[in-house]
């Protein structure tokens, strides 16, 4: 049997290692998994724009839609990593609240009770406190999930309740005011070359997240664990350590989101964030990430987060009846995913 000539065996079908670098790039652009959901987003904007060009296609509407979505986008970037590992993080909204509250209260304490007129020094400390608060919850989630092997749903459902409770406990159940004006006027509502600063920050976070996921070893391990956790463990990847980092990342981003929300609203709210988790998850899944892990992208998440935001905005501008709005959003949402899925399937079957 060893008489079989080698060249024959590897004839026409073996890939020469030269081409593939290029084909893969070209293919990736054309056949990207996010292509069709991007088309859906553009279509939506086109339709709304056609109906009310004067109100929809304005700088103002663009600016506000982007700004109002940036906090959620930061949460969703962290959630993308979590979901790719086949985990879930229900706690992000509560961690956002907790971080905002601790940050605002620290800034107030540093400024004798009211930080409204405080300077940049105080603001930087506030940012640090927000990030550390988020990190602490993320670490706790990570420890319980990765080390104690408790299902992520249970752990983060627990911290969902606990972080909110803790935030309310230290703020005594009320919103914390006294957010420095310098923060509100710069990060909160300031713009740079017409682009809101919040949007810039969220874009930077998304870009770093996308690079981390697609080009680095960290991203590779994230996919590997979600694809087959046992295989990842057997090839010597520290699954426990990596999962801890993932939940830590989600926590830190939730902390950052809390700081951003505080800058934007100029108050650290203890309410209004109980559906952030579902909204973030929906954005991630809309963007083509599978809840079973192993596949997904940050670019998809960005598109997925904007689709419901654009829908809601569009319907408000068109003056659709409030009770019809969720119905309309639901229909378009499901239709969008259906379109995306059937396009992708068609491409794979071709």
């Amino acid at each position, binding site marked *: 049997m060893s008489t079989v000539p080698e060249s024959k065996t590897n004839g026409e079908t073996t*890939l020469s290692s030269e081409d593939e670098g290029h084909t893969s790039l070209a293919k990736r652009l054309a056949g990207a998994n996010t292509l069709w959901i991007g088309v859906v987003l553009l279509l939506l904007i086109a339709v709304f724009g056609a109906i009310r060009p004067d109100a929809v296609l304005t700088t103002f509407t663009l600016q506000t839609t982007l700004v109002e979505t940036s906090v959620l986008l930061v949460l969703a970037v962290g959630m993308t990593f979590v979901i790719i590992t086949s985990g879930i993080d229900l706690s992000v909204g509560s961690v956002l609240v907790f971080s905002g509250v601790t940050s605002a209260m620290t800034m107030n304490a540093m400024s004798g009770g009211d930080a409204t007129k405080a300077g940049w020094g105080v603001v930087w400390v506030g940012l640090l406190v927000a990030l550390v608060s988020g990190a602490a919850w993320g670490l706790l989630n990570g420890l319980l999930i990765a080390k104690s092997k408790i299902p992520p749903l249970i752990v983060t459902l627990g911290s969902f309740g606990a972080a909110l409770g803790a935030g309310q406990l230290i703020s005594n159940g009320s919103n914390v005011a006294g957010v420095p004006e310098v923060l509100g006027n710069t990060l909160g509502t300031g713009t740079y070359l017409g682009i809101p600063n919040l949007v810039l920050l969220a874009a930077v976070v998304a870009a770093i997240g996308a690079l981390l996921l697609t*080009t*680095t070893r960290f991203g590779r391990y994230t996919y590997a664990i979600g694809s087959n956790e046992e*295989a990842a463990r057997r090839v010597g990847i520290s699954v426990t350590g990596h999962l801890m980092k993932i939940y830590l990342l989600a926590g830190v981003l939730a902390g950052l989101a809390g700081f951003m929300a505080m800058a934007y609203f100029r108050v650290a709210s203890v309410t209004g964030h109980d559906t952030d988790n579902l909204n973030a998850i929906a954005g991630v899944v809309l963007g083509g990430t599978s809840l079973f892990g192993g596949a997904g992208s940050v670019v998809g998440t960005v598109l997925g987060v904007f689709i419901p935001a654009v829908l809601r905005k569009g319907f408000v501008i068109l003056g659709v009846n409030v009770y019809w709005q969720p119905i309309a959003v639901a229909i378009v949402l499901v239709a969008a995913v259906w379109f995306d899925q059937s396009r992708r399937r068609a491409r794979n079957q071709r």
Partner: protein
Amino acid sequence: MSEPLLEARELVKHYGSVEALRGASFTAYPGEVVSLIGDNGAGKSTLVKCLSGVERPTGGTLLFEGEPLELTSPTDARDHGIETVFQDLAVAPDLDPAANLYLGRELRKPGVLGWLGVLDKHEMRKRAAEHFYRLGVSLQSIDVPIAALSGGQRQSVAVARSVAWASKIVFMDEPTAALGVVQRERVLDVIKRVRDEGIAVVLISHNMPEVLSVSDRIEVLRLGRRVARFKGPDTSVEELVGAMTGALTQEDAA
């Protein structure tokens, strides 16, 4: 014969009420191909899992290069130069072949980018293609996830991965089960080459001619215990089958 590289004594492994290993012993010497054979359910894969840190045995001891060793994780085993082709392959189905080949041992870009953890995907893909070529594997596209590969192609990836990194001992749990005739020959060639580099190769296979053709020694497992040991060239298929099925017993408690 030299000192044993790896020696397992009286390993016991229980899963609930199932006794997968009931005092199994096993020895591997450096630079030899030792085959581990046995009936379905004899406990071969369980033994391999215990020896590569995937499962922790319920009882028994392990010696590595004469020193007692406790393997608490697969990483532990890797650090000792132990690589394994698992029967279930243990690949990440969503990643492409190159990514699987380098999983846990990614090549990074040179310079600051590499320090930041940026992968050198191009280099990995190129080298992976070479590996596959050497094993006689042909892929129409190297960019597809492993889930889309044929059974034999997938198995080749797992084999290529293990031999690429082993420095002391490599366990191969039925590495040729899904391979075509040509690829099987290639893998047997690779096994011999690896052996010649002084690495111990533990081969598990149900194909007796294959076992006989490549093994320096053969150990037989039956019902979770070692029941017989043979010198490779001195035995026959009939003798091996007899040992596996219990028609012939050599050792009582090994």
